[in-house]
């Protein structure tokens, strides 16, 4: 049925490694190294592309052209920016807590590395396939806030600290909404394992299968996910017009680049979770009853399906950022505690009723 099955590729790599190195620690180490390098390259390419995409989307919304100089249509602009950031001086902050200051960007980037490992890009193209996949992703992606808090604290700077505290308040509240909206779909899917969630959407995506409660959950997840990645209109942690740059005011060079990269990767992770849980992951668009249509859709490779959906969600998040003004901290907390959370709780009960009575499609 599927044209590209990565299980064959990965198992052939595995068997050839076993042949030459034997079953054991060495093979596992090599496999881990291969996966790590692959993810590193993926991170770099993805981060550079997302920054480029953001600048272009922002430019088109504002009647501008965006980067046009470096490479055709400015495609190499972000690579040039990255090289510049690599070569910039790392400014030594005298009164900063050196250890925490240096370790903070790595916590942020590690959290996003941990989270992206569980995302299935295609059948078999997934590093970790836990049976508690969603729980795991929700857990590790909220580790990133530790890095943000540490960065703000260790910088020994008022702006940084205010930014970090805002970020803490924000993530502690919005983590609830993210978790509950995912839980709504878990009620429908009956599993937390990513591969099975995707397999469960072979005939119809969950957003259509669970109709009204699933759509409410999707909207809530998009809002809360945007908030969790500290992106506009929820970018109070950075808020360049009030706090210079918030928690990363004191960072320069490659340490700043790590924060910057993590922000964009986190956006992609939220988009991938939304894709996997609501929009069928790498499953092509299937409509029950239309055999011919389903067959045509199968010809588009699943990886492409995944990235098409993920980038659509990313685009929607960028659209949010360049449309809405930033919320104040009290408005932010009002939105979560007075609106999203009660709606979410009602919604999860609604979904349970729908599933129990078999009203889903």
């Amino acid at each position, binding site marked *: 049925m599927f044209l590209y099955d990565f299980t064959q590729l990965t198992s052939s790599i595995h068997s050839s490694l076993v042949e030459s190195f034997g079953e054991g620690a060495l093979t596992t180490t090599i496999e881990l190294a291969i996966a790590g390098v692959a993810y590193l390259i993926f991170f770099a390419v993805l981060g550079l592309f997302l920054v480029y995409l953001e600048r272009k989307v922002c430019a088109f*919304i*504002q009647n501008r052209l965006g980067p046009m100089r470096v490479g055709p249509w400015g495609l190499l602009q972000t690579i040039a920016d990255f090289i510049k950031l690599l070569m910039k001086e790392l400014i030594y902050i005298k009164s900063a807590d050196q250890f925490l200051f240096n370790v903070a960007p790595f916590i942020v980037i590690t959290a996003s590395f941990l989270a992206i490992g569980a995302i299935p890009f295609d059948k078999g193209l997934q590093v970790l396939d836990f049976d508690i996949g969603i729980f795991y992703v929700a857990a590790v992606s909220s580790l990133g806030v530790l890095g943000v808090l540490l960065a703000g604290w260790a910088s020994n700077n008022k702006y940084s600290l205010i930014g970090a505290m805002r970020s803490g308040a924000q993530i502690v509240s919005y983590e609830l909404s993210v978790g509950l909206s995912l839980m709504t779909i878990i009620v429908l899917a009956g599993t937390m394992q990513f591969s099975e969630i995707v397999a469960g959407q072979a005939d119809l995506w969950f957003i259509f299968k669970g109709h009204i409660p699933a759509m409410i959950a999707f909207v809530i997840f998009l809002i809360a996910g945007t908030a969790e990645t500290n992106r506009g209109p929820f970018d109070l942690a950075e808020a360049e017009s009030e706090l210079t740059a918030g928690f990363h005011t004191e960072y320069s060079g490659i340490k700043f680049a790590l924060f910057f990269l993590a922000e964009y990767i986190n956006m992609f992770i939220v988009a991938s979770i939304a894709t996997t849980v609501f929009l069928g992951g790498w499953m092509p668009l299937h409509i029950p009853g239309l055999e011919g249509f389903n067959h045509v859709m199968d010809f588009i490779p699943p990886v492409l399906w995944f990235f098409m959906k993920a980038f659509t969600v990313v685009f929607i998040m960028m659209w949010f950022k360049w449309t809405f003004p930033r919320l104040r901290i009290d408005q932010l907390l009002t939105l979560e505690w007075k609106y999203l959370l009660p709606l979410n709780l009602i919604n999860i009960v609604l979904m349970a009723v729908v599933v129990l009575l078999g009203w889903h499609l």
Partner: protein
Amino acid sequence: MKVVVDYFKDIFGGIKTLITGMKVTGKYFVSPGEIVTQQYPENRETLQMFDRFKGEVIMPHNDKNEHKCTGCGICEMNCPNGSIEIISKWEIVDEKKKKAIDKHIYHLSMCTFCGLCVKTCPSKALAFGQEFEHSVFDRSQLTKILNKPNSVVTKDLKE
């Protein structure tokens, strides 16, 4: 009950305004209309600066090489950073000695484009030009004499 109704009214009202905003930006994303970005060195030939752009101070001359400057020196007095120097001369018109402009020296390197000279000129002899490519290799090239050689004051200053 009213509280509950208001609560949901709030939510739907909020969603409606958000969608209105996203419609506007979405429309611009799909059909941006006029792109405001100027790709400068490439479009050098066709680039049109707008009328109110303050590129440099100029003294417009008509086709008979006449300008309107009487050499009164009000622009020199009004210039906050001394970028204008007026050197006047005595001319004999109708057997009467009359003060006239010899050199209107303008230091572009010191000018902040505040526009006080143009605003205060009683005979409207000065104006802003749209030229903006001012980079030169030697600072002395930025000192300009605004009245052209052999130019005279126009006869009909009143117009």
